[in-house]
């Protein structure tokens, strides 16, 4: 059942254009999908795939991360000898902060060398909203004798999120990789999940650093495409690249398609998150809710259409919520209205207040604001 693979969720210098949503939290803990945080998707995928140990390489603003993941109980990672490790950046001196991720991999190398039995590693990010079976990826990796296997997604409709594009040849080998601002013309993007042997990883880390290179994907993988067999594994399921506001809004709204709801949350396994003891949601006699995703603990007296309500949101009498996302404990006062809005946690909209953003530029309210 247990996969011979370690998990790493690498938060170091993760591409983040989320503006106010990451003012006081890291990208990994941005709330998503009514009750989750972005990191839940990758973390649950790893657990469901049978990966017994996962390390999160934290970097900045990770208090929310520590609070959210704790010792991993909610992901069933509270194992003897630990299943979940949150590793803060080592900070010998203040310049360490700006150094590339390979430098931090090196500082965390104990994690790899001490977890003896697992031979393989998957290095991932936290902002890919998906449900992946890494057991299949490892099978593919071994079957095709790859040095590195990159989980990729082929899509006609590009996500507004920032993603690295790859060029794949007929044999499924990656021949070219470019950062999101590159000009490469390809409909395949990297999901930033890299499977390789622990031995190769440690070799790449040390060799790259010795050459003065400190970026895992650009240097340790990208510059080695000619020397190493780097394969693409195409993920079939749904994917959201969530690292800017446009992508956040678009991929949130996609959850209102029942096929995507089912695919993301149940297939191949369930997505876990931190438990809160919210009661079920109450629909008042005057509630009018259609085409929406509603988390627990909401109390709805008004109208909600085409929207996502997180846990504990109150929509008062006569209020109308359209095409909006309201995070935890938000309140929409009587006869207020929202259209194309994203409210961060604990925002209160006063009675009779009307807010309207644009479909391609939603109105964003920061945490705990009273409007």
């Amino acid at each position, binding site marked *: 059942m247990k996969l011979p693979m370690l998990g790493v969720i690498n938060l170091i210098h993760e591409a983040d254009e989320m503006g106010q949503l990451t003012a006081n939290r890291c990208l990994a803990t941005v709330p998503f*999908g*009514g*009750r989750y945080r972005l990191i839940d998707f990758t973390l649950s995928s790893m657990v469901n795939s049978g990966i017994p140990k996962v390390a999160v390489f934290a970097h900045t603003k990770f208090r929310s991360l520590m609070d959210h993941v704790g010792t991993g109980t*909610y992901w069933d990672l509270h194992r003897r000898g630990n299943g979940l490790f949150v590793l803060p950046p080592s900070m010998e001196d203040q310049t360490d902060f700006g150094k590339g991720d390979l430098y931090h991999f090196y500082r965390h190398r104990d994690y790899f060398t001490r977890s003896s039995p697992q031979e393989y590693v998957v290095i991932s990010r936290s902002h890919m909203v998906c449900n992946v079976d890494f057991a299949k990826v490892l099978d593919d990796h071994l079957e095709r004798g790859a040095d590195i296997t990159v989980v990729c997604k082929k899509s006609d409709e590009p996500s507004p999120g920032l993603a690295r594009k790859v060029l794949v040849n007929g044999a499924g080998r990656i021949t070219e990789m470019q950062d999101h601002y590159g000009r490469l013309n390809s409909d395949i993007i990297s999901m930033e999940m890299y499977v390789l042997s622990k031995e190769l990883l440690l070799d790449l880390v040390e060799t790259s650093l010795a050459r003065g290179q400190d970026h895992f994907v650009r240097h340790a993988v990208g510059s080695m495409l000619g020397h190493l067999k780097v394969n693409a594994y195409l993920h079939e399921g749904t994917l959201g690249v969530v690292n800017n506001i446009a992508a956040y809004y678009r991929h949130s709204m996609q959850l*209102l398609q*029942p096929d995507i*709801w089912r695919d993301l*949350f*149940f297939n191949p396994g*369930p*997505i*876990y*998150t931190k*438990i*809160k*003891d919210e*009661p*079920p*949601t*109450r*629909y*008042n*006699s*005057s*509630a*009018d*809710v*259609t*085409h*929406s*995703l*509603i*988390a*627990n*603990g909401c*109390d709805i*007296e008004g109208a909600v259409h085409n929207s*996502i*309500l*997180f846990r504990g949101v109150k929509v008062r009498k006569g209020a109308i919520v359209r095409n909006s996302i309201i995070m935890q404990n938000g309140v929409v006062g009587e006869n207020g209205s929202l259209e194309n809005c994203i409210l961060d946690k604990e925002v209160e909209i006063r009675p009779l207040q009307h807010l309207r953003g644009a479909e391609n530029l939603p109105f964003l309210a920061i945490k705990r604001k009273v409007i």
Partner: protein
Amino acid sequence: MRRNECIAMLLAGGEGRRLGVLTKDLAKPAVHFGGKYRIIDFTLSNCIHSGIETVGVLTQYQPLVLNQYLGIGSPWGLDRREGGMHVLPPYVRSKGGTWYKGTANAIYQNIGFIERYDPEHVLIISGDHIYKMNYDLLLEAHKEKRADATIAVITVPWADASRFGILSVDEDSRVVEFAEKPKKPNSNLASMGVYMFSWPVLREALIRDEADKSSSNDFGKDIIPTLLKEQARLFSYRFNGYWKDVGTIESLWQANMDLLDDEPALHLDDRSWRIFSVNPNRPAQYVAPHAKISSSIVNEGCLVDGEVNRSVLFQGVMAAEGSIIEDSVIMPGAAIGRGARVIRAIVGEGAVVGDGCVVGSIDSEEIAVVGSGETISLKAEMQEVEQV
């Protein structure tokens, strides 16, 4: 070990025969309630909110699901190093063993457990009731009166009084009379089955009761009447909140319906008195473009594509396109098919009401019940008709 001022003993052995197919594999305290909870969640949450961190849970009938559900008490904050929650099934001793004979015998058999904690007071409660109560206030009243035992009471309609244990009290709240299910009640103060005892008094009463071969070893029938006869200091403590014994299909259904008023008598969304439960961890519920939901409670993981009115939907319920659910309780994981209608009914855990089927009726006095795991399909219905 630090001395405990008060520990609780929770009677969770109820068989709940009158809940029929809903308790086939389930002890009554494990029956689902309120869209998310099991009945026992209420008393366990009451304990932790009242500062009682040592709780013995006495199980007997069908404890498998209940034991698994309770675990070591983590969901209720009762997984403590000292004290915490302990499940106490009957067990074989050196001289052989017996099942608990009555509520008093159940406590008698666990005197050893209670003495490990050396409490001053012991709270006796039952896992069958739905209410939010601060037992600490009961304890305060009990101590103030220097009572031997204090019984929590609630005012019931006179018409119902003969279904309860009825107390008559003087101006000082001291109990002067106690009658178990009296035909002609002298009062409408009913015992809630919540007793605060001074432990030495209870301990002695239990030992004497056990020695009395004619006793049925029950708190209401034996222990309380005997103490009263002996002029022990028995007091009543009046509770004014919502309290319900959900012993029948009708009362289970009604207690669920009670939650659906715009201003319900029992608030589940009270952040200072959260009802803790084992959380199912499902995605947010999905409401389809043509769904209608009003005066209802809906839990995580539901997918609603029909009309839901005055109903309670537990986690993972699927209500397909065109289905109608009214005045009903749909237990976890049940599926209601396309165009099916469920009215004045309880649909059990994992049950399936097939496309186009009809369960219950608005005109029926009785609440229709679909048992846990049952499947109702049009074909079966027609076959039944053919057989007639």
